[in-house]
């Protein structure tokens, strides 16, 4: 049977497309069945929801204190870059007027506009960063921690654009030269990936509290299971007035501020 070159090429092309399409469908189907529901590292039957309450009044008792920041950044090998444009930070302080701009006015700015507020990732209930990641490199674990898979991140920085809190940092260059004392117990990251506070997952897995909470001498950071009514953080939220950052956006932050 005679077949023209054009028809042969056309048939081969369609054949290849069919094979590729079949493979693609099979790959997606297999991936869906591979995704086992994530199991938490805790033994309790009820789901844990890690959260944090930061007592701003206790925090500002020590002027210029940065113990929690040092503890976090040294534990997790967070690089310290002098250039503000390229800085990487998991936890830091900002003046109240920047964090809660809608909650202060000309008449209140003098009093508390410049008071420091401790900021980190809010590990939201409905994280916008998770929704936008094109490769599922960031997701919310069953225990509430919004985590990053540094192996998968392609560095598109969509999550940084989506975060309403500016909680995420990008490695614009190789971080290792900017780490003064590498903590050998924790990996570093590589250039080209996004990173942020991880609620000290690795410490939680060992039954320890987060580095920031443990290092605070004033005990201003209270960390615990928001699902347990008798946890220290829940008891605090029951007794003191607390606010979240930008609650009107519907993100449901797990970090509360006792003002």
């Amino acid at each position, binding site marked *: 049977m005679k077949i023209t070159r054009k028809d042969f090429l056309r048939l081969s092309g369609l054949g290849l497309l069919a094979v590729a399409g079949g493979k693609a469908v099979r790959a997606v189907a297999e991936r869906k069945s591979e995704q086992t529901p994530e199991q938490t590292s805790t033994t309790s039957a009820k789901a844990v929801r890690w959260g944090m309450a930061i007592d701003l009044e206790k925090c500002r008792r020590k002027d210029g204190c940065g113990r929690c920041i040092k503890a976090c950044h040294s534990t997790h090998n967070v690089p310290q870059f002098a250039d503000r444009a390229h800085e990487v930070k998991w936890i830091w302080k900002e003046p109240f007027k920047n964090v809660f701009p809608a909650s202060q006015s000309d008449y209140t700015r003098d009093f508390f506009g410049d008071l420091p507020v401790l900021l980190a990732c809010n590990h939201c209930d409905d994280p916008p960063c998770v929704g936008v990641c094109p490769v599922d490199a960031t997701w919310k674990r069953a225990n509430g921690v919004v985590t990053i*898979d540094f192996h998968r991140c392609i560095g598109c920085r969509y999550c940084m654009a989506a975060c309403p809190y500016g909680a995420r940092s990008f490695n614009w260059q190789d971080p290792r030269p900017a780490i003064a004392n590498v903590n050998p*117990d924790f990996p*570093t990251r*590589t250039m080209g990936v996004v990173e942020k506070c991880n609620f000290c997952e690795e410490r939680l897995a060992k039954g320890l509290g987060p580095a920031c909470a443990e290092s605070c001498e004033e005990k201003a950071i209270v960390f615990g299971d928001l699902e347990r009514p008798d946890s220290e953080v829940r008891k605090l939220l029951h007794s003191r007035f607390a606010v979240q950052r930008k609650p009107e956006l519907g993100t449901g932050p797990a970090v509360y501020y006792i003002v």
Partner: protein
Amino acid sequence: MNDRPLILAGLTLFVGLVTTPIWHGALDRNAALAAPQIQLPTQEKQCVAPASYMRTSHMQLLEHWRDEAVRDGQRQFIAFNGKSYEKSPTRTCVTECHTDRKEFCERCHDYAAVSDSDCWHCHNDSPRASRGMP
């Protein structure tokens, strides 16, 4: 248009490119011909999987460890012989056995011209005694 010079030129270029491994290797004085001598661990005799499997598929094993540990939170690996290991390149592979990657990993990788695994851009490649993150 006379196609012959073009065809001959293209053919020569193609043959030259395709046979690069042969003539480039022959010209390269630094290329070793003997099989690489890797330094085996002294303490442990058994790897997390049979050596034959590790020789062919250690990358696949590491990728499964990576996804299971990071994405599923499953950090314990039960080996074929029933022993339990932590899925960690630093804490298990490096600390328990392959303490110097230059003497072990890189010998074969360099010989086979396999690009160096970029695990070590992030993970610690020196032995760690205490338990912690991989």
